[in-house]
């Protein structure tokens, strides 16, 4: 039953195989940080995964599966109903609570600065919890490269991340914090 649920949000392995590109054709951004101490310092915010023991296809499957958990919805209120056989798709009407000044702040210019950071942190946490038990470690990336790896066409960015994840061991030190 749970597999049905997961399958509803993920590509099937067979379908994913059919659409996977030849890694030789995948162009990846420059993730070197040797001359970029700020990128090293911000590695806990902007990173990519690498695992020395996976192939491109294995990395692609892992990243696709873990990124399927990034789909977000309205807060899961309790008590509530979950059909279990398929995920509930509720739009985010208002992600943050209406509590007077706080709510006004979140709708303000301050909010527009904070919310993307908050969303990035939530997404990073989900990816870390899913990827790290699979043997992946984090390595720092310049923010511009991180943007390229995380924003845009989903299959394309999964392919880029998979090529990095299964490629040569990064020169930079792992992100550990």
């Amino acid at each position, binding site marked *: 039953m749970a597999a049905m649920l997961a399958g*509803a949000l993920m590509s099937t392995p067979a379908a994913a195989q059919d659409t996977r590109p030849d890694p030789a054709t995948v162009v990846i951004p420059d993730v070197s940080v040797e001359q970029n101490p700020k990128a090293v310092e911000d590695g806990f915010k902007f990173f990519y995964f690498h695992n020395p023991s996976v192939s491109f296809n294995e990395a692609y499957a892992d990243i696709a599966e873990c990124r399927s958990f990034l789909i977000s919805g309205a807060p899961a209120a309790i008590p509530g*109903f979950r059909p279990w056989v398929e*995920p509930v798709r*509720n*739009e985010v009407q208002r992600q943050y609570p209406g509590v007077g000044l706080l709510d006004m702040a979140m709708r303000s210019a301050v909010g527009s600065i904070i919310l993307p*950071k908050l969303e990035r942190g939530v997404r990073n946490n989900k990816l870390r919890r899913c990827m790290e*038990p699979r043997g992946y470690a984090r390595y720092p990336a310049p923010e511009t490269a991180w943007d390229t790896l995380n924003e845009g066409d989903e299959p394309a960015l999964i392919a880029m991340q998979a090529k990095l994840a299964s490629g040569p061991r990064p020169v930079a030190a792992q992100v550990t914090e």
Partner: protein
Amino acid sequence: MIRSLLLALFMLSAVNGAAAKGGDGVVSHKSAPTALDPGKAYLLFRSSTAKSGMMNIEHVFLRIPTDAEIAVWKAARQAAYEADLPKLQKKAKGGPVPTIGEYSFDYAGPGNVFAIDAGDFIEDGEMRQFLVEAPAGNYVLYGISVGGRGVSTCNCLGTVKFAATAGTITQLGSLYADKVHKESPIPNLEDNLGPSMFNYGFILGQALVPPDETTPVPAALAALPRQQAAFSAVGLFHEPGAPSINRLAPIPGILGYDRGKVIDLRTGQPAN
């Protein structure tokens, strides 16, 4: 300062929603019943008592709905979708109209996901005892809640389920939960996941120690019909409304993990 604000907002975002705890037909007993209702199931478990600030960290259960319940939900969603279709088409302005699978639907029917209020215990202590009356059925340890009004962390990366039959107490053993970005004083958790996991939100973890003959049972319940839960592993599932995801800590002989795969250790096979 910003981090504190973000944490407060994140926590509140997870609890924004329903005004009451508890699922339909779910009652936490604060004293021992003299007899069991033959039409009801009863869940007995011990629980750790960790808090986040002033808010209790609570366990979230999902009862797997019956085919009839799913059919009612689907019919309600279909009716709402058809009623909203003109608005959806107008909003799409000639573009793609959401399919029914993409349609945002708030269901007002009976709930099957609920948290157990940490204050509604039958016996106090370092490990509190809870006796929860609930519909008979199959239950999933679904996740953890801060405050009990929203799912804060789902066990989307692996958990267990069990059957609760009517007319008897199903003994679950001991449940533990806490924040797990750093080392927790609560035992049995997979913790110390890294301090930066706490920068932009909570990540909570849950653990289960199944019952055995030494698991304490409140004396007032000792004479009532009781059976130990039989747990089996549950594979990945999605809860888009949970701000964080985690997995139930491994349980020897029951729940294991091999990279991302959930393994049913009773069979050695990946869990469904």
